[in-house]
């Protein structure tokens, strides 16, 4: 069960011709796919594409009713390879993933599909997460488009443009036999807006029909001699066809006057257009509706660049500013080449004026544009006010908020146990992975030395061979269940078995691809009517030859976790040690559990609730417990003691009673301030009777103790 449900929203996808569709970017893209007669859809979750995958999953019934095949792919490579369906058949297909990391994983298949080319429209929707929220913020999908010769569309960020781009992308793909990438910037995925819908179109040919009538064309297969043909075909046939389609169908756009007295112009990536317009509006060079006083060439197609259009735009201009986010500045390089080739003298201004790194926000563009104008059209240059940043003494009071494990997260106790073992055995090299567990790198755990990619935790530790005998130390690798099924089984465990590795791998099995939003995976314990779940990780691990395999089904049992880990690190047994630590993702568990409990309470049934608390009068404010937990519910509050000054630990009402606080205070021999409250709503008769009796006895004792205390009190 995914974290966010789109069940309600997907009903909008049935909107027909002329209806106004209002919703988020990801829904608009889905609607555009259906309007384009897509035959199959696949992909792998990861921000900002996770929710697109959730939309597909929640729209499964609609997709099926239209004859569209949807698959939650095992990895981005799987998704990319799925595009093989468009090689021989006129099937339109779309796959989606987070880029640039997902594109890295997919690149083998992408090279192959781009080499042979496609018959049916093949669309790759990449959630380009350049900048905020990104994992590898400096890399660009653009490089993949160039090296594999795939077209890259970067539409203006408004829903009508995005929807139109999806439809055009399929046609462009078919016209040039080339896969097309649609770059959806992170904010566009969840941007709300409206567009006028068209009817959904059933695919003229379904994947089932295609499979029933196989077509074979060895010229499309990457084997000599066809692969030599592919290179020539790409350059001589598909590239010119792509350029022609983009040019003839005016996929790129022009704004403002053709020329100005100053002889300047602006070239902008489609995705940055809105930021540019806002920057221009604020310095009086455009209005809110995009009426520009300067010529703008808006490249909705970032690759290929259209030589004629560039030459035309640059002719009669002294200087043109190219607004291209990220580096290297591929477009700027190409513009320079094209301008030269066209025999023009136009100066292309780019990264010498704009920052080399970071997002091109409206603010950044405004500053860059001001500089460009000052250099090349001083009459238009605005006076920018000096910045007025928050003074440092105030700014330093504002704390960072690094991401962390959720309240009650079952992954937290694993790292608590690791910290306790570290106290006994000293630090070990820890190879981390991608997933929620990567938050262990951050305070308060500060565990993890490297991370090499999704599912690559164990592989990242493969070079660390413990030396023999005294002082030998095994490394620890972490892997999540998501990464495990993505590739970790083979790249990590299989590799470790084959190479006789001696390290320890902890596989954190919380039942979902939790970090990306709780999607089901092979080992999920949930029932999913469209997928096969409950495939055990331990079985898979043993299947590839691991011998030392331990499993715990309650990660909150810190002593057990600690002992298991200590054994793995110290056992004389050679070969990889695999610990599978299972407990369900608390977010998902709570989402289910809360409803059930609320209903039971309403029905007057007996309901037990547990939560933790801290006695402020015995807490001395050292916060060891926090350093071993980091739970959002475990926080601090001003010390109620008039003499003590340090804040005391405090458990908020959001506590879900996972039990870690108690386990930690036991396992780490902390203070006795923690208590667990067990609250029974609608208790039974006998239970009530017993509580009444013991309560009465206790109350009498307390009253007598109280009298004694009052007598000796101040």
């Amino acid at each position, binding site marked *: 069960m995914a974290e966010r449900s789109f069940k309600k929203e997907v009903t909008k996808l049935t909107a027909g011709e002329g209806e106004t569709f209002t919703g988020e970017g990801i829904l608009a893209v889905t609607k555009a796919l259906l309007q384009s007669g897509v035959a199959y859809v696949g992909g792998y979750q990861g*921000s900002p594409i996770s*929710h697109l995958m959730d939309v597909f999953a929640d729209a499964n019934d609609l997709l099926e009713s239209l004859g569209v095949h949807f698959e939650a792919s095992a990895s981005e490579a799987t998704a990319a390879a799925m595009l093989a369906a468009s090689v021989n058949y006129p099937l339109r297909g779309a796959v989606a993933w987070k880029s640039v990391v997902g594109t890295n994983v997919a690149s083998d298949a992408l090279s192959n599909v781009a080499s042979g080319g496609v018959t049916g429209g093949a669309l790759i929707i990449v959630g380009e997460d350049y900048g905020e*929220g990104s994992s590898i913020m400096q890399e660009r999908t653009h490089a993949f488009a160039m090296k594999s010769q795939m077209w890259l569309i970067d539409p203006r960020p408004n829903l009508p443009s995005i929807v139109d781009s999806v439809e055009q992308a399929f046609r462009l793909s078919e016209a040039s036999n080339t896969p097309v990438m649609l770059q959806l910037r*992170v*904010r566009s995925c*969840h941007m709300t807006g409206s567009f006028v819908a068209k009817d959904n179109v059933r695919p003229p040919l379904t994947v089932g029909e295609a499979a029933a009538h196989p077509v074979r064309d060895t010229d499309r297969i990457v084997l000599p001699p066809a692969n030599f043909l592919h290179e020539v075909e790409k350059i001589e046939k598909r590239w010119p066809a792509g350029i022609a389609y983009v040019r003839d169908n005016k996929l790129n756009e022009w704004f403002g006057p053709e020329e100005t007295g100053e002889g300047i112009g602006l070239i902008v990536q489609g995705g940055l257009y*809105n930021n540019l317009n806002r920057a221009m509006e*604020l310095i009086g060079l455009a209005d*809110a*509706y995009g009426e520009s006083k300067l010529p703008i060439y808006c490249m909705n197609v970032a690759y290929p660049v259209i030589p004629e259009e560039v030459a035309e735009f640059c002719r009669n201009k002294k200087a043109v500013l190219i607004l291209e986010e990220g580096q290297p500045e591929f477009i700027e390089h190409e513009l320079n080449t094209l301008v030269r080739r066209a025999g023009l003298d136009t100066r292309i201004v780019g990264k010498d004026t704009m920052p080399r790194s970071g997002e091109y926000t409206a*603010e950044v563009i405004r500053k860059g544009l001001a500089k460009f104008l000052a250099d090349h059209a001083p009459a238009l240059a605005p006076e920018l*006010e000096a910045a007025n940043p*928050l*003074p440092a003494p*105030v700014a330093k*009071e*504002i704390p960072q908020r*690094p*991401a962390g494990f*959720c309240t009650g997260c079952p992954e937290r106790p694993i790292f608590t146990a690791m910290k306790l073992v570290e106290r006994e055995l000293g630090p070990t090299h820890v190879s981390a992975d991608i997933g929620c567990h990567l*938050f262990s790198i*951050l*305070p*308060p755990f500060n565990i993890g030395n490297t991370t090499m990619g999704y599912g690559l935790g164990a592989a990242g530790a493969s070079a660390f061979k413990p030396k023999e005998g005294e002082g030998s130390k095994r490394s620890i690798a972490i892997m999540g269940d998501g990464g495990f099924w993505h590739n970790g089984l083979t790249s990590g465990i299989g590799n470790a078995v084959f190479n006789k590795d001696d390290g320890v791998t902890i596989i954190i099995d919380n039942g979902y691809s939790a970090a990306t*939003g709780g999607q089901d995976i092979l080992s999920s314990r949930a029932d999913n009517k469209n997928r096969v779940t409950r495939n055990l990780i331990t079985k898979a691990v043993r299947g590839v030859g691991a011998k030392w395999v331990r499993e715990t089904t309650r990660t909150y049992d810190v002593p057990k976790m600690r002992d298991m880990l200590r054994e793995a690190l110290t056992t004389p047994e050679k070969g990889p040690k695999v610990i599978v630590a299972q407990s369900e993702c608390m977010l998902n568990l709570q989402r289910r559990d809360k409803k059930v409990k609320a209903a039971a309470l309403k029905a007057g049934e007996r309901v037990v609730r547990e939560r933790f608390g801290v006695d402020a*009068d*015995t807490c*001395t*404010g*050292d*916060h*060891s417990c*926090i350093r071993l937990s980091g739970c959002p519910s*475990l*926080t*601090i509050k*001003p010390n*109620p003691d008039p*003499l*003590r000054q*340090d804040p005391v630990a405090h458990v908020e009402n959001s506590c879900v009673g996972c039990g870690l*606080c108690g386990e930690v205070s*036991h396992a*780490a021999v902390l*203070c*006795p301030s*923690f*208590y667990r*409250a*067990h*609250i029974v*709503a609608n208790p039974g008769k006998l*239970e009530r009777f017993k*509580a009444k009796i013991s309560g009465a*006895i*206790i109350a009498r004792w307390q009253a007598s103790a109280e009298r004694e*205390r009052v007598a*000796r*009190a*101040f």
Partner: protein
Amino acid sequence: MTTAPNQNRLTIAILALGGQGGGVLADWIQEVARAEGWMAQGTSVPGVAQRTGSTVYYVELAKPDGSGRLPVMAQMPMPGDVDVVVASELMETGRALLRGFSTAHRTTLVGSTHRIYAIGEKQAMGDGRGNGEKIIEAAHQRSKRFVGFDMEAATERSGSVISAIMFGALAGSGALPFPTETFRKAIEHSGIAVKSNLNGFQEGFDQAQAPVAMPVEDVHEVPVPTTVRGRELAARITAALPVPAHVNALHGVARLMDYQDGDYAALYLDRLETVAALDAAPFEMTAETARHLALWMGYEDTIRVADLKTRGSRIARVRGEVKAQDDQILSITEFMHPRLQEVCETLPAGIGRKILGSNRMTDLLGRFFTQGRHVETTGLRWFLALRALAKMRGMRPRSLRYVEEQERIEGWLELVRSQAPLDLGVALELVKCQRLIKGYGDTFERGLANYERIVAEHRRSPRGAGEIRRLRDLALADDKSVAFVEALAG
């Protein structure tokens, strides 16, 4: 940078933490605008916020000009170009200022004044909290209007969620040109928790009319004597101690009478007076000694913990804290881990020392104290056991721990008294070093060891006040004492 607002456009930035419903709020605002014939667009970067991080949601509203053209909307707030900022927490209010979203003369800043501490603040070994007053001051300076109140308390009061409070406060601030009724309708249309959300909306709306308010803090009332002995000791404080030390000394006496008895409190005053005799205005050393001596003399032993855990007032307090209703049954389990060490410390000094001094005995007995215990204080068995332990209060002055602590206290006071005539500043810093000694088990031992190192170092080669303060801060910098040990070595 400040930019002139566009009359037909409103830009709204929402800064919220994961789980606070920033997305819901953004949706409500857009619905209000659309219902009033405006165009609305919202954006956010999801995925980060839900795992405790903070996120900015951005909403842009535009009034159509009748031409049918679509305005070009921005996808993120631009510093100096934001009309309304809504922030769900005090430091997020601060972050809005840090990012330049709120500007004087233009921005209506609606921010909560309550704190959700960040991990960096929480994990500090002492007090790592950021200073909220500076944020409030800056919020006033850097906004056209600052609407600030404790939104968490408002959420509690109205039994609602903080997003509804923020929505109400936004409506109440009057920053958007839409009728209040349309805001209410947006909540009704969503169809989820309509009643409680409307309650929260009203609470937020009303609070927005009030002046900026910080969360209500607990005030510590100065104890008033209720017994003959209490009045006697209170009179002694008034007569013998300088005024700046009175409050702490009154708290100290009250605590130690509760902890042990009147004689013990009298011993406290005897000790305190020897320090006061060496002090001069402003008498900070006496005031701080009054604090730290009371804390040290009221050290946490098993007797004290057993007593505090079994008081009637404590069970009532827990009931309130965990929100157990009257008809619900509450049971409380403690996580106690008494080691042989703590048990022996409770025994008479001679016996305790003997056991701890013998390997055979510690091996034999130690086995019974390796496990943590789940102690159900609401059950008769454990309650009576703890009460019996609390009853050992009378025997406390003969216990091993008592003997050890009094020796340490005397050593500390002796040092303070010997330094005071030379340098009051140094003496004061030595007094404050008591702060390092806190906690139980390993935490206690680490703190005590760090305290003893500073004292030993000072005895070996006297340090200035600033140096002692620095060493103390370093001892609280990390729990492996890395920086502290380095500083001592260097």
